[in-house]
C-alpha cells in the first residue's frame, strides 16, 4: 500500500459542522489504492480547476446495455488506481427504504469488488457505486444479483423510476406511489436495461402537490397524486388550531390562491368552496390535523419535463388531468407505451419526449395517444389565429 496522497487543499474541507466528503474518501484511501488515487486526482483538479475524467468509453454487463457508466482518468500515469473507475447504478428499493441486513450484503460486495465509495443516492434515484475495474463489472453484477440487487438504467433507455415515500410514511399520499413505481419498474425491465430509444425517459411519482421527488421539474412523465371531491374538514381540530394561537387568516385564508376558503371568527368555522379549489395543498400542509384531502383519489399525469439542454428547461405539463391509479395500473402503462412508440418513431437522436412534442405540436401528440384536448391542459387558450387544420376536418 503506497502512502496516503498529500492533499493540502482538500484538507481544508475536513473541518466545519457539515459532514465532510473528504473524510469519506480518506476512509477508503487507507485500504484501497483507487480511493487514494482519487484523493490525488481531486487535489489536482483543485489546483488546476478542471476535471480529469476522460469522456466516454462503453462498458457493460452481459445482457444489459445500461446501468454501467464508463469512467477513465485522463492522467492514469499519475493515478494508476483510476485507469478504470466505472460507475454502477443499482436499482433502489421504492421510497429508498432499507433493512440493514440486506444493505450490508451490498456493502460487503462493494468492499470486495469496488472502491467502497457510494452515492446515496444519485440525482436519478439509483444507488451509485463509484469506481471499479472493467474486469470486475460482471462480478459485481453477479454477486449483487445473488443478493437480489439489480442494475438501474443509463443511456438512451427508461431511467430508474423513483417515487416519494408515499403511503410508507406520509398521510398525504393520494396514490400508492411505492406500489406504482415498483410495478412499473418491474414491468419495464427491458426498457430499463436495454437502451434503444432516441434518448432517456424518466418517470417520477409524487403522492401529492408538494411533489417530494421534484417530478414536475425532472421527469419526462410526472405522476402527481390528487383528488376529485371535497377537502375533509375536522371542525373540532380547526377550533383547536385557532385556540392554540394559529394564524388561520394569515397562513391559510389569505394564502389560498383561489380565495375559496373563508373563516368565521364568531362561529370558529372554516368553509371551503371546493368547486373553486385547485388542490394546491397549502391549507392541508398548514393544518394537517384539521384538513384532509378528498376521498376520490387519483393522479394528474404530466409530460415533458427536463433540464435546459437542449430546448431550454421544461416543466412537465398536464396531459391527463385525472387518472385513477388502481393496480395493475393498465391505464398509465397503455399511455406510456403509446408515447414511447410515437417518440421512438418520430424522435431525433437525443430528443427528449417534451422536445418532440414541442417540435411536432401537441396536436400530433394527442392524435398519437388518443387523448382528448381539455382545458386543464393550458393556462389559457392560444391568443393567435394561426392554427392548423387536418384534411379530414375541412370540406373537401
Amino acid at each position, binding site marked *: 500500500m503506497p502512502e496516503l496522497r498529500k492533499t493540502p487543499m482538500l484538507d481544508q474541507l475536513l473541518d466545519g459542522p457539515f459532514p465532510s466528503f473528504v473524510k*469519506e474518501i480518506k476512509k477508503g484511501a487507507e485500504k484501497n489504492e483507487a480511493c487514494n488515487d482519487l484523493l490525488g486526482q481531486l487535489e489536482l483538479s483543485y489546483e488546476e480547476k478542471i476535471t480529469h475524467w476522460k469522456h466516454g468509453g462503453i462498458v457493460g454487463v452481459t445482457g444489459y446495455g445500461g446501468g454501467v457508466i464508463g469512467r477513465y482518468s485522463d492522467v492514469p500515469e499519475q493515478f494508476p488506481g483510476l485507469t478504470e473507475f466505472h460507475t454502477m447504478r443499482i436499482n433502489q428499493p421504492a421510497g429508498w427504504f432499507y433493512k440493514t441486513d440486506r444493505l450490508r450484503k451490498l456493502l460487503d460486495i462493494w468492499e470486495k469488488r469496488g472502491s467502497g465509495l457510494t452515492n446515496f443516492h444519485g440525482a436519478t434515484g439509483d444507488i451509485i457505486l*463509484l469506481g471499479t475495474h472493467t474486469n470486475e463489472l460482471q462480478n459485481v453484477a453477479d454477486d449483487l444479483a445473488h443478493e437480489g440487487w439489480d442494475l438501474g438504467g443509463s443511456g438512451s433507455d427508461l431511467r430508474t423510476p423513483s417515487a416519494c415515500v408515499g403511503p410508507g410514511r406520509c398521510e398525504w399520499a393520494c396514490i400508492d406511489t411505492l406500489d406504482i413505481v415498483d410495478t412499473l419498474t418491474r414491468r419495464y425491465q427491458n426498457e430499463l436495461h436495454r437502451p434503444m430509444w432516441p434518448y432517456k425517459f424518466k418517470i417520477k411519482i409524487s403522492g401529492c402537490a408538494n411533489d417530494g421527488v421534484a417530478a414536475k421539474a425532472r421527469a419526462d412523465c410526472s405522476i402527481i397524486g390528487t383528488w376529485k371531491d371535497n377537502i375533509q374538514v375536522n371542525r373540532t381540530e380547526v377550533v383547536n388550531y385557532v385556540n392554540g394561537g394559529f394564524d388561520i387568516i394569515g397562513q391559510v385564508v389569505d394564502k389560498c390562491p383561489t380565495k375559496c376558503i373563508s373563516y368565521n371568527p364568531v362561529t370558529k368555522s372554516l368553509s371551503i368552496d371546493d368547486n373553486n379549489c385547485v388542490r394546491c395543498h397549502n391549507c392541508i400542509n398548514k393544518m394537517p390535523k384539521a384538513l384532509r384531502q378528498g376521498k376520490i383519489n387519483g393522479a394528474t399525469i404530466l409530460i415533458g419535463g427536463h*433540464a435546459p439542454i437542449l430546448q431550454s428547461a421544461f416543466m412537465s405539463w398536464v396531459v391527463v388531468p385525472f387518472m385513477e391509479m388502481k393496480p395493475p395500473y393498465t391505464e398509465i402503462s397503455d399511455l406510456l407505451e403509446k408515447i414511447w412508440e410515437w417518440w421512438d418513431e418520430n424522435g431525433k437522436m437525443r430528443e427528449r419526449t417534451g422536445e418532440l412534442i414541442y417540435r411536432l405540436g401537441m396536436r400530433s401528440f394527442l392524435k398519437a395517444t388518443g387523448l382528448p384536448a381539455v382545458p386543464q391542459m393550458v393556462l389559457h387558450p392560444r391568443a393567435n389565429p394561426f392554427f392548423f387544420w387536418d384534411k379530414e376536418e375541412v370540406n373537401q
Partner: protein
Amino acid sequence: MVKTDFGPPKYLDMMSDLCKRNYGKWKYHEVLDTGTLVHVAENGEKLYTVRSATPRLMHIDTLRAFCDLADKYCNGFFRFTSRHSIEFLLEDESNIEPLKADLHAMGYSPGGVGNTISNMLHTQGWIHCHTPAIDASGIVKAVMDGVFDYYTEAKLPARLRLSLACCLNMCGAVHCSDVAIVGIHRVPPKVLDEKVAKMCEIPNVVAACPTRAIRPEPSKKSVVINDEKCMYCGNCYTMCPAIPIFDPKNDGAAIFVGGKVSDARHPAMFSKLAVPYIPNEPPKWPTVVQTVRMLIDVYAKDAKQGERYGEWINRIGWERFFKVTGLPFTDKHIDDYIFSIPTFRSTATFKW
C-alpha cells in the same frame, strides 16, 4: 447463469412491521424539532423520524455505522430522502436522544425539518464526471458549513431548498430550487481537428448544437464553431470528446433564485438568474458561500411568514430584489435565448 431483469428489492421487505401495518393509514404528522418528526397512524401508533443530512458521497464504513445505529435503535430500518438525507425510523420515543447523541459523535447533526434549509441536492463534479465546470461536493461542503445555522435552527419564513449542478446538464432539480448554483463555461469549445476527424460523427456533432453554431468543415473532415453563436452549453463535447470546453480561467458558477417544485399557494416556478458568474475558488469558494449566505439572510429578514423565496420576490418585485440584495443587474439578466420577449416588461407599472 445468473438471473437478470428481476428488478429492485421489494420495498415491503425493507420496511418495519409498524410501517407495514400502517401502510397508507397515516393520520397526521408533527414537527418535533428541526431534526425530528412524528407520524401518527389512524390506530394511534407513532413512528418517529430523525433526519440528518449526509455528504451523499459516502464510504461503505459510514453506511455500516448507520446500519449499526439502525440495529441499535430502529430494529434495523432506515431510509433516505430525495435530497440525500438519511432518516432513522424509530418506534420508541426514548431512543431519539441517544440516537441523536450517537449521530453527533459520528459528525452528523440532525436537521433539515420544517422551516430550515434541508440537505443540498447536488451532482458529481470533479469527483466523477467528465463535463463539470465547477466541483460539486467541495462547494456543497463549503456552502453548508456557511449556512449551517439555517439547517439546525428553524429561523426561515418557509422551507428553503439549495441545490447545485456542476454543468448545464443539471442532473438535479436545480432549475426549480430556491437558491441554485450552476456550473457554467464562458468560452466556446476548442476544436481539435485531427481528433474530430478520427473520433466523431460530424452530423451528430452539428445536430447537437442548440444554437446552430457548428458547421461542417469538409476539407479537414472536422467542424468549425461560430463563436458569436455559441453559448457554451457543452452539448457538442458530450457528443464528441475532441471538442473540449473546459477553461480554468473562465469556468465558474452562476446563481439562480426563486424556484420551487411544490404547487402549494403558487404553482411551481423556475429559478431565475441572480448572479451570472463567480470564478472557481477552490478549495472553499468564499465568494459563492458569501453570496448564498447573503441571499438567504436578506430573504430571512424581509420575507413574510410562510413565503417561499420566489413568492417573496414576486411580492416585492425583481427591481426591489436587486436593490435589497445589492446585486448588480446586467445585460446577462435579460434573456436573449429563444422565447425571451415575453419576459420583457410591457407595462409602466414598476417600482423604483
